[in-house]
């Protein structure tokens, strides 16, 4: 029992159940219905994908605030390559992902090299990328919103993989989310790389002395996070048949919120990918549940803030009790 309670995601799971019952009572049948559940899961999936990657990075002791900007840049890059330069979809996807990996590597390299807080470095990347995305897309097309991806060769396969509904109402993004959450959990708990990530975030000096390649772990985590942001951007571009230079704004904070609700520590060295996935689910539940109860959507952010603070406090209490006893 104590071992179970000491898991980081326990708090998030408990809140999930609690919040679900609250909305099931307040919003009634629509929230419990199949289409209500689908609306929640579809909204949570893209954030969940991001949160899983961001949680790994945070466990490794670093932040990436440029996630949202990478999404905006990747989406526009995909659209420019396909609809403006005339490329087929798949080569454009490949180049976009390579670009994202490069940005992630640059973030990681700067952080490792300068030893400055990643908070500041990636805050810089946030502005640079967002500005460049808006600037370049306006300079090339005069617009910040591009559509028409569905006319490009290769779209059908991409749609089937990334945006279709394998079950009525449920988008395939949910399966990707589940897949990556399980993959990340396996990586963290069952592999040497996982141990390295915990060690890098928890006690970097000791880890280095024990022979953990701290720099390489961090670099890899930044690349993985950026790739995930690119993947979500491509997924949304396919799903919504286009991209917007502003897309992904504030997603970096939402992903951090989801990870923290899921039990990941801001200081690194502790956390869980499954918890982050639960955090994202909680996020989607509140966002969509509020609409279904008929409460004015303006209040969503208030609920969100309260939930975040409550989750952090209860996670903290749970962890102290479980580990102290």
């Amino acid at each position, binding site marked *: 029992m104590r071992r179970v309670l000491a898991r980081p995601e326990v708090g998030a799971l408990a809140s999930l159940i609690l919040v679900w019952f609250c909305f099931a009572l307040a919003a009634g049948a629509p929230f419990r219905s199949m289409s209500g559940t689908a609306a929640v899961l579809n909204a949570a999936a893209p954030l969940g994908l991001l949160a899983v990657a961001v949680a790994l990075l945070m466990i490794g002791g670093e932040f990436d605030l440029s996630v949202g900007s990478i999404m905006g840049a990747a989406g526009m890059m995909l659209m420019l390559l396909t609809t403006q330069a005339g490329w087929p979809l798949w080569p454009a996807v490949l180049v976009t992902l390579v670009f994202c990996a490069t940005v992630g590597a640059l973030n990681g390299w700067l952080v490792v090299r300068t030893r400055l807080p990643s908070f500041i470095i990636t805050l810089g990347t946030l502005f640079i990328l967002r500005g460049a995305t808006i600037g370049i897309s306006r300079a090339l097309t005069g617009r910040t919103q591009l559509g028409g991806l569905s006319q490009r060769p290769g779209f059908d396969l991409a749609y089937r993989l990334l945006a279709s509904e394998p079950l009525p109402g449920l988008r395939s993004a949910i399966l990707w989310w589940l897949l990556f959450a399980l993959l990340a959990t396996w990586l963290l708990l069952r592999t040497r790389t996982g141990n390295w990530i915990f060690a890098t975030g928890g006690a970097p000096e000791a880890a280095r002395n024990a022979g953990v390649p701290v720099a390489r772990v961090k670099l890899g985590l930044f690349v993985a996070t950026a790739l995930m942001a690119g993947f979500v951007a491509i997924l949304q571009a396919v799903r919504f048949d286009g991209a917007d230079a502003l897309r992904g704004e504030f997603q970096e904070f939402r992903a951090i919120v989801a990870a923290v609700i899921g039990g990941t520590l801001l200081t690194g060295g502790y956390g869980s990918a499954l918890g982050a996935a639960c955090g994202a689910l909680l996020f989607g539940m509140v966002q969509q549940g509020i609409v279904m109860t008929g409460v004015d959507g303006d209040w969503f*952010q208030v609920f969100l803030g309260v939930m975040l603070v409550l989750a952090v406090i209860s996670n903290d209490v749970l962890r102290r009790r479980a580990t102290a006893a």
Partner: protein
Amino acid sequence: VANGANAAARELGVRVEYQAPLRFDMVEMSQLIEAATASRPAALIVSIPDGNALGDAIRGAVSAGIPVVSINSGDEVWRGLGVLAHIGQTEYEAGFGAGERLGAEGVAHALCVNHEVGNVAQDRRCAGFADGLATNGGSMRVLAVNLADPEDTQQRVAGALAGDTTIDGLLTLGPAATEPTLAAISASGRADRLAYATFDLTPRVLEAVRDGRMRFAIDQQQYLQGYLPVVLLVKYLETRTMPGGGRVIATGPGFVTRANAAAVIDLAARGIR
């Protein structure tokens, strides 16, 4: 919009819930529509700023058997989505009306100050404006400005006015452009020979119209865009009737001029419009 919808709801004894995404974000908006669909409303009213991005969510609501009426944005795409009717202002016609009016006041060479070149809706407004002016033999050219920088907007308008002294009319496409444009006009030294009009109302725009610094403001009458769909949908549910013809139900262009600006200001102050 919300005021009109609430008024209709009160009068008809129905419940209307108003939801808007926190930011102008089509992903969030489509999630909002999905959640609304799941809550099984008797009817749904949506705006469609991007038919590609929102098409799936709207078709989902339609196929769930929910009657949908679109308002405001979406006059080009609503027919293909199974939407019953679209209530709003068609951009070309609104620009055309502005051109006719300024032309009738003797404007021969006008500027269409466009803060979003490339946005199809804005381009259509300018195109309509050109054709409207042409009915009186006038002409216009487009001046592109960047609204993120009001100083830049003001300097560009001032530069255009100084560079071409035959210009005798201006049209801006949104209220955010009015302050810099008014400043440029009053600095030009020939404010009395420049006829200025804008799209959309704000308190500042209304004051400028009342004080005669602006000839008129084009009002898409958003109150009606909230009021009419509620009425139409309630009647649709009761009687299965809906205005036909496949045309947009036009709430605009309405024109606020010096003659009625004071009345509109008064209504706005009382929270009615």
